[in-house]
Each structure stands twice: as structure tokens, then as C-alpha cells.
């Protein structure tokens, strides 16, 4: 299981990176964490001719909290590792649901290398960060020599391991609105064992709005070919989080047509989605009850 011969570039600046991507396009693969890419190369499932290693990119790490156009937002750079998500103070404070998601990811070695942006680019249908990104309405910054564009997570994922990223672009940053004190976030998954890849996952983000129903985003991963925001179920959850049966029926109606045929089967995955919905719903209701007391 040895890799095929490959050329290797290690750009230091973003300018160098974008020039390399512009030049090589789909002949190139971007090496960030490598935890998904290297196994594919070892199995010769993919045959890029050029490996562009971004691990020494200046200024690509880190998490910044800045004042964006729509309020304070967290900007997570291309070299932010999975492990950083759990340890970084800014992340835990301003995007707590991301930290919840990160707790499910892999073992120490995977977390030391794997990156948030890389996970988004990889777009595994059941992966934790893509799912959390959809629920959090994250925005993904793609940069190329042609310029930059910001894509909403909802629009970023187009299928199993497929995104809108063009061959000359890289995922430079993901932006998440900073959590407000009254926001609620829930993340859970069913996996073979703790930290194993998710079979099905749920991410729920609730943002109360004064005088209105809260902004609820409920997303399920691992059933469809991409993390799936369930708009109707989310609206119903906002209106009446206590009606478990109705919510379950709505989830089925919304999700079943999108279920992929894979192993293990769709009926099992839909069942798990319903189980996870119930956990999220119950979590939200408990949170509401506690808020009522205070």
C-alpha cells in the first residue's frame, strides 16, 4: 500500500499556494491534516500528480474573534486542528457546539493533525464538522488566484465528498457567528463506539429572537449524501418543541426521500435520526425548563 509517485510543493505564503493551485488545478490535491487523503493515496484510490502541503502556510492557523458585518464572528483558519477546537478558549466560548462536535472526533493522533477546514473540504456525509457547520449557518471562505468568495454551509456541500470548491480554490477559513449568552447548541451522534466515525449525527442550534420564535436549525448527518438541514422540522421545533410525535413524523417526511442506499441500511439510519432528534428535542426542552426556573 505504497503511494504512487507524486510531486510535492510546500508553499509558504498564500500567494504561492494560490499560484500553485491555479497552475495545477485538478491535478493537485491539498494536503492539510492528511488523515483522509493519505489513506486514499496509499490505496491508490486517487491519483493526483501534485501534492500541495499547506501545513507551513504562514498566518493560516489560529482562531480570531472579529466584528463582522452581522455582528461578532469567529474566524477559524485553515490550519486549526481538531484538537485546537477543544482546547482553544475563544472557540469554546464563542462556538461551544463546535467543541461538542469535536469531542466525538477520532483519537489523539487524528486530532493532532486533522483540520477543521480540511474536514469541511473532505465533506464526509456523516462527519462532525460539516454537520455542525450547517447547523451553525457557518460561512466558508474559498480563496483562489481569482479572488475570494464566501459560501453558506447550506450551499457548500453538494454530495458525498463533494463541495462547490473549484480545483484552484482552497478552504481558507470558516466563519461562525459568535454564540450569544442565550443560544442553545446540541450535538450528538451514534457511532460504532465513542470517537469512531459517526453513523448518524444530529446538530441543533437555537438562537432566541426577542418577540419572535427562535431561529432553530436542526441538521442530520449520515442519512443523506451531505449534512442535511431540516427546515420544516426546524420550524416546527421552534413553534412547539414538546410535540415529540409530530416532530418525528416531520423528520421522516423531510429526510426519508433523501436517504441514500448504503450499508448499514436506510431504515436503520432513519431510525437513528429519529432517536437523535428526540435527544436533541429533549435537551432543548430541559434547557427551556431550566431557563423558566431562573
Amino acid at each position, binding site marked *: *500500500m505504497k503511494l504512487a509517485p507524486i510531486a510535492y510543493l510546500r508553499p509558504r505564503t498564500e500567494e504561492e499556494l494560490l499560484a500553485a493551485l491555479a497552475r495545477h488545478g485538478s491535478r493537485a490535491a491539498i494536503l492539510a491534516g492528511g488523515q483522509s487523503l493519505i489513506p486514499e493515496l496509499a490505496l*491508490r484510490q486517487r491519483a493526483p500528480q501534485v501534492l500541495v502541503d499547506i501545513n507551513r502556510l504562514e498566518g493560516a492557523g489560529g482562531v480570531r474573534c472579529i466584528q463582522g458585518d452581522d455582528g461578532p464572528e469567529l474566524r477559524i483558519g485553515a490550519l486549526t486542528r481538531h484538537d485546537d477546537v477543544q482546547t482553544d478558549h475563544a472557540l469554546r466560548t464563542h462556538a461551544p457546539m463546535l467543541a461538542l462536535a469535536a469531542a466525538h472526533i477520532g483519537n489523539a493522533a487524528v486530532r493532532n493533525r486533522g483540520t477543521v477546514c480540511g474536514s469541511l473540504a473532505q465533506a464526509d456525509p456523516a462527519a462532525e464538522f460539516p454537520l455542525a457547520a450547517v447547523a451553525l449557518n457557518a460561512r466558508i471562505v474559498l480563496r483562489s488566484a481569482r479572488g475570494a468568495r464566501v459560501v453558506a454551509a447550506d450551499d457548500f456541500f453538494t454530495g458525498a465528498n463533494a463541495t462547490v470548491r473549484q480545483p484552484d480554490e482552497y478552504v481558507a477559513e470558516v466563519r461562525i457567528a459568535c454564540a450569544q449568552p442565550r443560544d442553545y447548541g446540541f450535538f450528538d451522534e451514534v457511532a460504532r463506539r465513542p470517537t469512531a*466515525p459517526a453513523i448518524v449525527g444530529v446538530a441543533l442550534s437555537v438562537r432566541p429572537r426577542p418577540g419572535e420564535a427562535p431561529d432553530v436549525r436542526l441538521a442530520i448527518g449520515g442519512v443523506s449524501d451531505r449534512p442535511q438541514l431540516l427546515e420544516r422540522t426546524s420550524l416546527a421545533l421552534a413553534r412547539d418543541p414538546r410535540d415529540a410525535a409530530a416532530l418525528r413524523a416531520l423528520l421522516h417526511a423531510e429526510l*426519508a426521500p433523501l436517504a441514500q442506499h448504503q450499508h448499514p441500511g436506510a*431504515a436503520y439510519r*432513519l*431510525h*437513528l435520526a429519529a*432517536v437523535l432528534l428526540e435527544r436533541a428535542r429533549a435537551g432543548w426542552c430541559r434547557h427551556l425548563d431550566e431557563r423558566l426556573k431562573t
Partner: protein
Amino acid sequence: MHESPRGAGEGLGSPVPPFRNRRLLAGRGRYVADLRVPGCLHAAFLRSPLGHARIVRIDVEAARNMPGVEAVFTGADIAAACSGYRGATAAFPGLRAPLQHPMALEKAMWNGEPVVLVVADSRARAEDACARVQVEWEELPALTDPRAALSAPPIHDGLPDNRVLQLAQRSDDVESVFARAAHVVECEFSFNRHTGVPMETRGVLAEFEPFERRLTVHISHQCPHQMQEEFARLLGLDAHRVRVICPDVGGAFGIKQQLYGDELAVCAASVLLGRPVRFIADRAESMLSDIQAREHQVKARLAVDEAGRLLAFDVQDLYAIGPYSQYPRSSLGEPRAILGLCGAPYRFGAFAGSSDIVFQNKGMAGHYRGVGHPLACAVTEALVEEAARACGVDPLEMRRRNFLGAEDFPYVSPTGTRFERLAFPQCLAALERAVDLPALRAGIAQARAEGRLQGVGIAAFVEQTSRGPWFYGQGLQAVSSRDGCTLRLEPSGVFRCISSVTEQGQGTEMGVRQVVAEALGVELDMVEVMTGDTAATFHGGGTWGSRGMAIGGQAAWEAAGALRGEILQLAAIALKAPADTLSIRGDYIVDRDSGAPRLALRALAEAAHFRPYEFGGMQPQLVACATYGPLKQPYRCGSGIQLSHVDVDPDTGQIRLLRHVVVHEAGRVVNPLLVDGQIRGGVAQGLGAALMEECAYDARGRALASSLSSYTVPMAIDLPDIELVHAESPTLTDDGLGIVGVGEAGTVGAGAAVMNALNDALAAAGRRRVYCLPLTPERVLRALGALESSGLY
């Protein structure tokens, strides 16, 4: 058996950690992949991507011209240097054993069969060249459903159908027993194909020296002598000029026991090239080409009387092997065990059993830890628990009423298997002492009252170990059931022991060391043990069927006893005292009664080696040899009972293992630390097979489990602590130290116990059982009716 001298401190029965572990802990293990030979070439294979296909054309020109490539061999090239082979056995002349070649010739018969061999200056370049080989395939329908095998077109040209063999036996009165019985329970089982997954993949380093026609093979394997004979025969070499050496081996479990075409082809390549060639299977090709095991469909019935006494078993087995019978041991091991050991722990009157063995376009099937014993246990114990439910008898009481007791032995089962001894009453007593069963049951009842799904399952099991020569002898198969030991006294007063049993981590070397030290009366670190080199060791059986200590240990014991005798004779001359007043203790010849040191062993050894004239005309031999193989009994049986307590999550279907207990007895124990290690490791594999492991194939015969991501094995977090309870052993009447093998015990009963625990939980909830392995969460949810109610698929 002579008396064993005591006072050396550590010997038989001591829980001493193996000495070799220090080196392994420091990263200094030397496995085949770590060996470096100047000028070594590296092999990679192009393997069939399909389950069944005609090879229309192979074009290797582009591959031959790739950088670093030394040679490219097709199946025909290798066949010119290497005979084919058949996994036949004279014991079953009706067994269909089509001729198999190390690499495919006209047809590829399974996904993973080697088709082209590339030899290059590095593995990476060999793989690059493999990618340039062009093969034109004509895909053929793949036979992947065992139930369709007997009616499907034969996959072997020249055979009338896909039957390998049919076994059948029947007691005269069995049908009338079933007709009259108060209760008859019936289960249909589907057992999953799975494999051993040793952490070190298979590997071989073959070096052929053309002028003396010597082949030296370093190989990760359990049976070096068997392989010496096979390589010699199949490559047309003189057996005494073939040397097989096993370096450190990273786990084997039966997977490294038989002949592999790819390993043989690499040896052939070395012969053809006159150069050393190395092949290390990567994990992907291991998953495709390692021995697979235990794919059976079983329909079974049990008849019991009103009082819950077992009357008769009826087992119909359908066994799916690969496209060939495994060579050299044949693929009969599993069905013979399923039929022979059905109902083994119990007294019953009649038996009907049949096994249809069929070919498949899937991986080669052979022996994996436990062989057919785990299935015999699972079938038996599931039926017994169903019968207990049908009769309204407590499951443990059901066992108590039916277990064979001391007064029953020797016992010939209606299956034809003869048992000299089993220890189930002792095991039951030990179980009841170790586990507070009423409290356990009360806890489960409480959990159920709270709406949780919990169950407890029991599995009584027998394992046949330490096989004698009839098993393969009657098959006229060149598989040895004997082993030997050569023991030398060196001038410095230490001992060098060369033993033909082999080490793969179970502690063989340490066990032999302990036996020798005990028999001599010396400290453990005065004995150095060497294994795994056919140039040095007696032609022995190596590791298989739980026999290392029982057979290899016996040979070591006898050699040590003989050498001790000579040492005391020499000491008697040197000390001018009768030999029977002397003994050996630690570094010294001592006075037997008082223990007073008389002469340093080192001084005696130096004198005997360098000044033999001091011994009155006697020729000091300073070396003793003994070989041993069982001749009184065809096998020695170990007994045990496993208990599993599970909690089933009704939402996710996941099974949480709350508790697992193994009660076991296996005669005399050389090293309890190592025995415990074998049982725990065996349980882990048995649980993995029951819960998560599967070599699945699609309809085209393509393997779906091709990596450790798609083939799930247990990790630490999946397993409970495994409680071990050692039961009292009845004496063994065989001609030896009274040791019974233990290597497979854990695997034999674990799956049955957890399956019974799950079904206890399901039965209590009024749900149907699951007898289809692996017991995945999806299957559990279906049994709970949870997936139907989704109303969608």
C-alpha cells in the same frame, strides 16, 4: 514420570512474565518485515478484482519496463517452477479437491487471488509496475450464496456441481425420539464469515542459493517444518536443503498455519531468479487473501423430555468454503467439529447430523482459532436455552440436569465422539461460587421493571486440544502431531534448549523454559530457549490446535529429566558420592536431603567439556533429546462455562457488555499469567466475531471488508473486564504432565454466551430471537420491531 525437584523458585505454575517481552517493549521485535538482506528484491501482486473471471489476456510489457523492475511473472511462469496442490484427505476420499496453483492460470476464482507477481527493487516500485499490468477479464457469474451453490452451475470446469463433500450420520432411532419428545425446539443460524486479523500481516523472505540448491525462507508462520516439507515438495527441492525460520511472529491464530499461494509463488520467484525476494502482505491484500472461517448456515433441533432432559440433537449444516479446499489440511475441520461436538457437555441418546460443504467465489476458508468448536457450542447452547424456555426450567438447572458427570466417563456421545474426561460439575460449582447468580438475576429483573433490556447467557463448551496423530495421519497428510526438544549443558553451566513448538506471542518459549527449569531444578534465567528453525529443531508440529505445552512441554520435560540424570551421574563421579544422594538446585549440585551445595554446576560443566578424563572413562554427552506425541488419546478435552451479562439499548440496538465470566479448567497449568492471557485474548476474538466482524461480499464476489475501517474488530472500549475462574480439574489419564491446551478456549464459548444473553433479553421482552451473526445493532432493532414501525422501508 519422575519426581520434580523443588526449591528452584520459579517453575511450573509460576505466573512469570515472558522474558522476551522486555525486548518487545523496547521496540526490538524482529518480524519478517524487519529483516534486511543485501540485494533483496521486493514482491507485489496484481490480484483479481473480481470474484470469478476468465483471464483472457495478460500484458506485462509495460510493467516489465518500469523503473526498478527485475521480473514480472504470470501464473504460467510460476507454474513452470512449482507444482499445484490439492487439499485432499485420504480419510474422506469423496472430498472434491480440484487442483490449485499458487497463482491463477485460466480463471480467477476469488477477489484477491494472485494473478501477476512483480519483483522490483522496492515495494513501491513493484506496486507501480503492478498498476501498469494490463489484464483483460471476462467476468463470470460469481457464486456467493451458499444456499444457491448446489443448484448453481459448477464454478470448476470438470466438476459436476459445487459440492465439496457431504457428511452425514444418524442414530437409528433418532426420528422416533423426536416424534415422541415432550418438547422440540428448533433454531436456524446464520454464522458470519470472518478472519483472524493478526496485527502483523503475513510475510516471507525467500533466499535461493542456486549452486547448492538451497532455499532459506524466513516466514511469519506457525508450522515451519510443515512449510519446509511443502516448499521442498512443490518446488522440486530436497527437503533437507530447505530451511524455514520463523523470526518474531506478530500473532497468528491459525491464519498462519497453512500454505498460501502468494508465499509459495515468492519462493518460486527466488528459485527462478537466484535472488532473495521479500513479500510483506499489506493489510488490504491480507483482508482479501488471509484464511477466512466459519461461514455456515445451520438448522438444528433439540428434543427434550418433560423433565428437561436432553434426548436428541439434529444438526443440518451448510458450510461455504472458498473455491478450493485449503491445503494441506483440507477444509473439513469446521464441519467435523460441529457434528462431532454437538451436545458435547451433555448426556443424550440420539443424533442426526449432516453437513453440505460447498464451494464459493470468496476467500479461501480454513482454520481460525477454535475452528468449528465455537459453532458447535453456539448451536448446542442456543438450543439448550430455548429448550429451557420451552420447559419452563431455569437455564442453569437445565445444564445441571444434563451435564456429564464423573461417573459417565469414558463416554461415547451419539455423535461418535469419545470423551475421556470433562469437568462440567466442577465448572458449574466454580461458577456458582464466583458469581452471585440470584443477585445477578434480581438485578436484571429490576432493570427490566425499569424498562431496560438486559439478559444473561450461559455457554458450556468443550475444546479438543493436543491432537494425536490419527487426525491427519488417517488423511495421509504430512502434518505432524509430535514435537521434540534438544537440551544442552554449556561449559558455563547454563542450558540451551531447542524446541520445535513455536512462538507467536502466546508464551511458548517461556512455558518451555519453565518446564525445563523445573525438571532440572535450576533458575529460569539459566535456560535459553530457541524455537522456529527447521535446521535446528526436530520435525515438529509447531503451533496449532492448542498443543504447545501439552506436547512441546512434555518433550522438554523428558529431555530435561534425561539430562538431569546424566548431570547427577557426572556429579556422582566428581564428588565420589552416590547419584541418588545428590540433586540440582539453582547453580549448584547439592546434597539431596540437606540442600547443602557440593559443587557449582559451572565447575562440573567446564570439567565435563574440557577435562572429560576426570570422569572415569565415561563419555559425557551433555545433551539430551526427547520427542513426544500423544499416543494414548486422540485429543485432550478442556471444559468450561462462559457467562455474559448484557444491556441492550432499545433506541440504538447497541449491545453493552456489562460482564463476562469464563470458568475454565485445563489440567495442569504451566504459567497462569499466560493461560489467562490466552483465554482473555480468545474471548475478545470470540466476542468480535459475534458482535461486529464480517467478511462480507457483494453479488459479484467482491470483498466489502477490505480494510480495518470496513472490517470492525474490538477495541478496548468495547470489552468488559473478563473475569477468569479456574475450576478444579479431574486428573488426566494421558501419558504426560497432565497439561491440556488452552489457546482456543476463550474463543470457543464467548460468542455463544453473548448470543444467549441477547436472546434472553429479547425473549423476556416478548421479542423474537436473533441467530444471525454478527449481532449488529441493526439486527437487534429489527428483532425489537423498531425498524418496521418507521413505515418507510
